[in-house]
């Protein structure tokens, strides 16, 4: 495993430090975890794209109900496969040092299942479904819950939550920063 720091030039490490919320040591640690997912491919080409199933096998993501959405959001090829830079981006946003507004932006993208820039009824239903695991809500309960959500957050009453409305609600939540974190 001794090759990790020699994969990057000093220039590249400095640039990554500038662009993410990581220190040099953390960047190398992230690379090491990425490498361990599929050593042969990454050794051959450090910009290799790993298939999403491999990313999902990370212990930190395995039980996460939104793991597929997270990979889709950060994937630069749009299909959920991540290169190292995408992976670094992802871990930077989820790190402790990332500020609230960055996390809120990406949380919105993760919950936006159809990627249309709005959280509409179907998006919210899917979110709640993922969150309740085995004890799914009945249809009436789901309807009621979505109505409550819209009543709380939908300010312009267009039956969908825009980013501004989402941010308005979430930025006041005391738990958000603590729960929207992943540590490698």
């Amino acid at each position, binding site marked *: 495993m001794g090759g990790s720091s020699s994969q990057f030039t000093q220039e590249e490490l400095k640039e990554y430090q500038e662009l993410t919320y990581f220190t040099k040591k953390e960047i190398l640690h992230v690379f090491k975890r990425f490498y361990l997912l599929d050593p042969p491919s990454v050794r051959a080409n450090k910009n290799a794209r790993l298939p999403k199933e491999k990313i999902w096998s990370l212990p*930190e993501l395995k039980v996460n109900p939104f793991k597929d959405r997270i990979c889709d959001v950060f994937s630069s090829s749009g299909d959920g496969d991540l290169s190292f830079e995408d992976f670094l981006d992802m871990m930077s946003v989820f790190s402790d040092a990332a500020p609230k507004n960055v996390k809120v932006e990406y949380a919105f993208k993760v919950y936006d299942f159809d990627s249309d820039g709005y959280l509409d009824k179907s998006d919210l239903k899917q979110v709640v479904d993922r969150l309740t695991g085995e004890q799914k809500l009945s249809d009436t309960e789901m309807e009621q819950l979505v109505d409550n959500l819209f009543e709380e957050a939908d300010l312009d009453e267009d039956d969908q939550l825009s980013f501004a409305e989402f941010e308005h609600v979430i930025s006041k939540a005391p738990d958000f920063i603590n*729960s929207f*974190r992943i540590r490698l």
Partner: protein
Amino acid sequence: MPVLVPLNVNVRSLDHRPARKSHISIRRCQRENLDYLRRNFSSLSNVKDSDDVLKPGASDEDATEEEILENIQRQKEIIAAIRKQPWRMKKKLKTLKVAQDYLEKYEGKLSKSRGYQEATERVWKKIRRELANFATFFIPWDTRIKTIESYFGSVVASYFIFLRWLFWINIALSILMLSFVVLPELLVGLPYGSLPRKAVPEPEMHRAENIATIWDFGGYMKFSVLFYGYYSNQKSIGSGYQLPLAYFLTGIGIFVYSFAVILRKMAKNSRMAKLSTEDDQFTFCWKVFCGWDYLIGQSDTADNKFAAISTGIRVSMVVSIITMVFPVFFDLIGQMEKYHPRVMLQWQLARIMVLNLGNLYTLMIALFKKVNNLNASWALQNVTASGMIQEILQLDEHMLETANDTQVVDTLTRLAGIKEQCWETIVGQEMYKLSVFDMIATLVTTIIVDFLRGLFVRFANYCWCWDLEAKIPGYGEFGVAENVLHLIYNQGMIWMGAFFAPCLPVLNVLKLIALMYLRSWAVIMCNTPHQRVFRASRSNNFYFVLLLIMLFLSMLPTGYVMVSIEPSRNCGPFSGRRRMFDIIPDTVREQFPAWLTTVLSYMSTAGVILPVFMLLVMAIYYLQSLVRSYKEANNDLRIQLQYERTEGKKKVYEMSAAKNDQSDGSGSSHVRSRHKAQVP
């Protein structure tokens, strides 16, 4: 606006790249730079893309040094802000490269002085980054805490993070004490045995190495740097280090440092949580969007979390339906809220806190009583001793002429065989014993309550009537609140005792290390994740407020001792003075110019202190009313928002309905004007 002009020049002067390609890519990045600038600097909002990009660029001699400097500043801001943008890595890299290229090209063109300024800034930034990189080596127990996070979630892990933070504070306190008080005395002060106060007295020698004495922190330990009594009251030791002054100032410095650190942490926390949001305003949204703990990495914990979220949602929905249909039940539910687990937990915490404080204060009061008794008995002994001393003096008058007060008392007491008591050392001993005993008690409780219980449940389950694991007694749950309170209580002990026992913070550091390993082992080995998950308090500041209260209350006994009680005459750095606090005015009088003494004595009169006090009270009142007015403004805005949603919508419908009518009808002007009059 000349912002983009120099960049344009950049394009034309790049001959080594194929001009067309670089022109396009840089133009695209210019646009992105502009987007950022437009988002953050509204004065540029009227600048359009195409105009500036295609403007025939002025050569760079036209761009004055000021403009170049401004642009350099902007590029630096852009670089600092890139990582906050929700862009892909490639885009960020490209923007960074454009900005960095510009900087490289133009920083060299600045005048010498500016160039040095920029160079120092760059070096300084590099140093800071290297320090940050270096500091990450020093975060202990990271893997351990991470494992706990993945098993138990962020609430349980917060206890360990709090422990680690306290560990760092205690290390800082130890370094303070060690470097200013303990080490000077050890290295430069008079060694053991040179003075009566520094030696185990004759009557106690034969017991000095018994286990019982060591357990009591007596014997050789009592007459060592561990305790207040060892430090000599010589004005300066070695080559002029004033130990008594240093001791006093370090004692105060410990409290000041602790206050500063806690307040800074609280300020940081409260900036995250904004004030004046009603708790029940966004219940459902928060449950749905902030409900999942992304740190969870085990399927059992995840299942528990799913169940907790699902139950929580259902309960909230039932509550909201009831309050909607039967408003009269709203009060009832408010009543029931009093029995919500969070409220019960807060009451329990308050009870434990009061109990702990009662413990510490009872100890303090008992110790003060003992000190008074000692002083009384010393007075009594004085009477009998004075008789003996008269006799001795008559034998040796020479002694009085050549020695000073404390030396005389030392010699005479040694000769007269009177046992001297040093109440500060006794207080220090009690503190040490309390701390050690608390550690042992924690160890024993953890082993019995958690470990043995876990063993019993695990193995007796095979041959027991009912399912031990699922029902009573089951495995223990990690009580975050009680354990955090225990840490706070422990820290309060240290603060109370640090003045009398300078090495107490060091002992506490060792204790915290042991606690960390003990608790993390216990939690992973013997505890299960919580079935019901709720936070003890909404804001993160709850525990810090408790810590602050504990700090304040621990400071009071030491403060009282410093200004009111007479220090022991035969031991410690303040012996011979009337009060410990007297060392400050004495030092000021002896070592600073006379006018400073007059100024300070004026400042401590009622004529200055009362107005200052009143000023502070007024400032507090003003800030309170400011906070209140902000809360009201926030409330008003929220009501207005509600109004806009309901009433404003009605108006919009009316307007559009009116417009529809008007377009359906003849469109005569008087109709239009009539509708215009109706619409406000």
